[in-house]
């Protein structure tokens, strides 16, 4: 898997993301790309937009990043069938760039949420989730002020009908009561896929849990899934 991590002014999770990718890819370090780059290196399998902030998140979270030179290249990469993962601010940027439907609103509580949550894997036949079981619940860390997924009912129905909801906020038992949905996301949606299943946006941080010495490996299957899918490609 040849991966690259994009760094915007304000990104702060790129090192953890790079470590997670390196661990899953058998020690191969991802390339680090700067937001002002207009081109991606040749031969990439995966581009990751990590979490943090971007350009002060002026106007709306991810709105400025979506207009940056590198995002034009990332859009073209996705349109050619490239794999793209956006986490947290990266998810917001993918929505703002039109690579995923919907938008992320201010958390319903108006509070920044910094805590663990659980997510249920809605399908395990995607390049991002093949090392999970369908219905499996895993723990990840939330750290966001604007993670409240919103789309109109027609779009939500279409996402559900076409199986593009990848992850849902759940309790550890795998049920999806409102209490498990701390940011107020529509239908407990935590992760959304593109129609070709090659773009995933997810709000919590699976890269936080990839090392048995540091808070366990709940998030590691996500990275191992990508490494397995993209090795064969």
């Amino acid at each position: 898997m040849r991966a690259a991590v994009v760094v915007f002014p304000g990104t702060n999770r790129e090192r953890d993301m790079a470590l997670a990718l390196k661990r899953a890819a058998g020690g191969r370090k991802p390339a680090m790309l700067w937001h002002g780059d207009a081109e991606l290196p040749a031969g990439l399998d995966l581009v990751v937009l990590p979490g943090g902030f971007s350009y002060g998140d002026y106007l709306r979270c991810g709105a400025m990043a979506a207009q940056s030179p590198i995002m034009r290249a990332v859009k073209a990469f996705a349109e050619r069938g490239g794999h793209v993962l956006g986490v947290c601010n990266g998810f917001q940027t993918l929505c703002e760039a039109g690579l995923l439907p919907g938008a992320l609103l201010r958390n319903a509580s108006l509070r920044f949420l910094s805590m663990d949550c659980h997510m249920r894997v809605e399908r395990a036949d995607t390049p991002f989730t093949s090392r999970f079981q369908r219905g499996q619940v895993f723990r990840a860390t939330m750290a966001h002020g604007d993670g409240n997924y919103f789309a109109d009912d027609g779009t939500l129905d279409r996402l559900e009908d076409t199986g593009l909801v990848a992850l849902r906020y759940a309790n550890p038992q795998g049920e999806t009561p409102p209490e498990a949905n701390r940011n107020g996301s529509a239908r407990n949606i935590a992760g959304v896929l593109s129609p070709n299943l090659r773009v995933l946006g997810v709000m919590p941080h699976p890269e936080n849990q990839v090392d048995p010495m540091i808070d366990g490996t709940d998030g590691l299957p996500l990275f191992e899934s990508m490494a397995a899918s993209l090795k064969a490609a």
Partner: protein
Amino acid sequence: MKVRVTVMPKNGVLDPQGKAIGHALGSLGFDGVGEVRAGKVIELDLAETDPQAAKAAAEDMARRLLANAVIESFRVEIA
């Protein structure tokens, strides 16, 4: 030419900021305040001197960047 773009959360989109402002007004003793919605105003100084063309340009800017059509509506007026 100055153009003002007003961006508001769409009807039906949760506006927790507006809600919080409403609560604060209530606690200040302002009675009878119904729904409160909070948006933003963006003022643009355009080189264009024709009002129609300036409005059309600002609308294009709003569609492509200033507002997110998924969650926001906008209104453009010549200031």
